[in-house]
């Protein structure tokens, strides 16, 4: 099993959710986060006052999928979250040691 974690632009969330649904991935955790990568922050000038915006609002998605589906999910996610501009975000993939469904103690991929 793989855990896929993605940080995306907030306005892309609905599109990504739809795309995931389209390939049969329904379960995901969505968190509102703030941060920056290479996009860094930028300076805002408002009313002649300059201030630094360090942490930009982003959306973090987390999902765990069977190994065989990893490539497809990553590809779909990247396509639906892409605008081609700086700040589109990142996708990280991790190995998952175990998954347990708390309700009935299902284990492994059966718990997904």
């Amino acid at each position, binding site marked *: 099993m793989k855990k896929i974690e993605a940080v995306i632009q907030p*306005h892309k969330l*609905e599109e990504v959710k739809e795309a995931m649904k389209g390939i049969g991935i329904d379960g995901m955790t969505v968190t509102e986060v703030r941060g920056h990568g290479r996009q860094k922050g930028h300076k*805002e*000038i*408002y*009313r*002649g006052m300059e201030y630094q915006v360090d942490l930009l*609002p982003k959306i973090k998605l987390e999902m765990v999928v069977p190994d065989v589906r990893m490539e497809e999910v990553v590809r779909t996610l990247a396509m639906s979250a892409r605008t081609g501009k700086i700040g589109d975000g990142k996708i990280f993939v991790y190995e998952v040691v175990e998954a347990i469904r708390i309700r009935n103690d299902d284990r492994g991929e059966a718990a997904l």
Partner: protein
Amino acid sequence: MTSGVVNLEPVVTRPDAAVESVAHTLASRSADVEDLVRNAWAKTMHPVPGVALAATGGFGRGELFPHSDVDLLIVVESESQIPPIREPLSAFLQKLWDAELRPSHAIQTVTYCASEHEDNVELSISLLDRRFLAGDVAMFQFLDERFTAFAAKRKGTLSRWLARMTEARRAKFQNTIYHLEPDLKNSPGALRDLQTVRWLAALRQQTVDVAASFEFLAGLRIRLHEIAGRDHNVLSFDAQEAIATDSAALMRDYFRHARVVDREVLKALEAANAEPGNLLGRFHDWRSRLSTTEFTVSRDRVFLREHIRPAGLRLFEFAARHELKLAADTVDRLTAYQQNNWETTWDDWKALLSTPKPSFGLRAMQASGALTSVLPEWARIESLVVRDFYHRYTVDEHTLVAITSLESIRDARFAGLFAEIPDPWIVRFALLLHDIGKGSGTEHVAESSAIADEILDRLEGPEADRAAVEFLVRNHLELSSVMTARDLEDDATSLLLAARVETVERLKQLTMITYADITAVNPDAMTPWRLEQLWRVYLAGYRALTAGLYSERIHHAESDALSAFLEGLPVRYLRTHSPAQIDSHFELARQLESRPVAIEITHDRRIYVLTLLTRDRTGLFAAIAGTISAFGLNILKAEAFSNAQGVIVDTFTFADGNRTLELNPTEVDRLRGLVRRVAEGRQDAAQLLRARPKPLLPSRQARLKPSVTLSNDASETATLIEIVAEDRPGLLYDLSRAIAAAECNIEVVLIDTEAHKALDVFYVTSGGGKLDAACSARLQDVLRAACSGDSK
């Protein structure tokens, strides 16, 4: 019973049987537990003289809920009796746990029980419901006598402590009964409040009738315990559905009873806090000096002096202005007055919603039922539950929380933005109506707009104000949707936003509506994430709108006279003026056929607006600003536009702080005459200003560092100058004169003030185009000097 409760058999389904059933269920549970406790005591505790077992709290009252804690008090004569009974006591409690009870016990001496303990008020309160169970009956009787005497003597102190505990608990629930998923034990208006009403009445040796509400609330709590199988008291959405076929009707019934309890507990708390000897109460008495011929203020509560209903919304405006609540007596009297027609005017609402904290007035209206009387449409959302995952309050409560949220804005950016809005009451009125169409079964924004239209028509307010409120209600979800569904880095988003909101003023209003609407979803809804996103939306719109201020011009195909007047004015002019204002400007423009200058001065209380139309010439704007300042008047806002014929439309909004114009009506004519002479070039403004005393500048420490920013990117044809500086009389004159002296032409001006801060935007050209680098640098220096009052 109207709630469609079907699964409550046999507890509350049949109205006739309900009273008996709830009482029976609680009493029989208490009796069963009592048997178990007595048996366990007999088996484990050897009779010891001077040791008694008493039931307290709900168990003491014989109102034990299926899974509630079993409150027990072991009374001893002296502390030396405690060590020998520890071991058997442990076995006694073990037996209760084995019987699946949850004992909650305390061991105390009679002396301790019959004395004041501010850190253990709960014990004194629980002893109000004491009952003998087992052990030394003489010991219990001794406690009974001592505690009865103590409670009678110290009833004032106990009442105030109980009131304090109650207020602290209610604060944890934001002091409102209107939670979508209320806690049947601890929420305001629920069983703990109801019991507080009984306790406070008992301490004053009075009786109170809250039986009907008790039966309803207790019946629900019994059912909740049965469903959950534990001491679970939150009436969650799931529980609401499990208990009733029509959960909306169930919740309406719940809020109806909770309102009764809430009103009774507030009345009881008011009486408890008014007990003689209350230091805080005495402190609050000084506010009685606020009393008027209509209202008496005593201990932070407003009483009516006459046995008639005050006209309009005066009572509520008074409560809001002084941040007071209505006395229980006032609420009772208003409730009785409600049958009569209660008419309000546009000005009533404007006055109430213009106070800094209108929530005090609106809450008072809600508590007394006046809100529904004056605004019958409010009944549609009263206690209305609209389920969603995030909302915590009923629709009416959400609305009031939203309005309250604008009274203490923590984020400095939004606080500043709200302070810049000249008519914050428009925003508040729109918030009052923004969700009024909820619960209709159709899309709520359209429904709210339609209902708002009817209300606005009925109140017959000025057209521009009505249009502003209507716009805000109709678009109150726009920015939320942009926040989550649009790319804020994309110029198309900014342009779309600008096209929707049309003016910076409306953008500001809509931003604050969105801020309040999100904040009022639940106490944690306005996360730093959402705050940042909303601010980014505001900035995106602000940039697009300010960039378009000047470059978009009106071009009419028709050739009538009005079109000729409008031709070439910035599009912003149309967006910021009502048809009536445009007509009035057009009339002034027609006067130019027979005279060189047309002037109009209007006023609303101490705020005056001077409109001037004439042929443009260099330095004119500065000269008029200087003339107004020379009169000792403080310019708050100014706008300057010019049309294709070279006619300028300048408006100056200024405050008559010294009441010069108000107290001397002939001075208005003198001002008009002076402005005319200056505009016609027959009088020098600089000369007028020389006669004025030099204004005092704030101390250097308090002075705002001026900021002057020039940009050639904001507009296609002009240079944008943004100035933020400490406001002072004559500032606008100094700035505009500096621009004219640098041989630059002012195309558009937007002047605003926020407290002592002046926020000025000028679009200027030089030689018909943007300023070059050298000219920009020179102008920046002279403007900085002008901001500091150092210009010559």
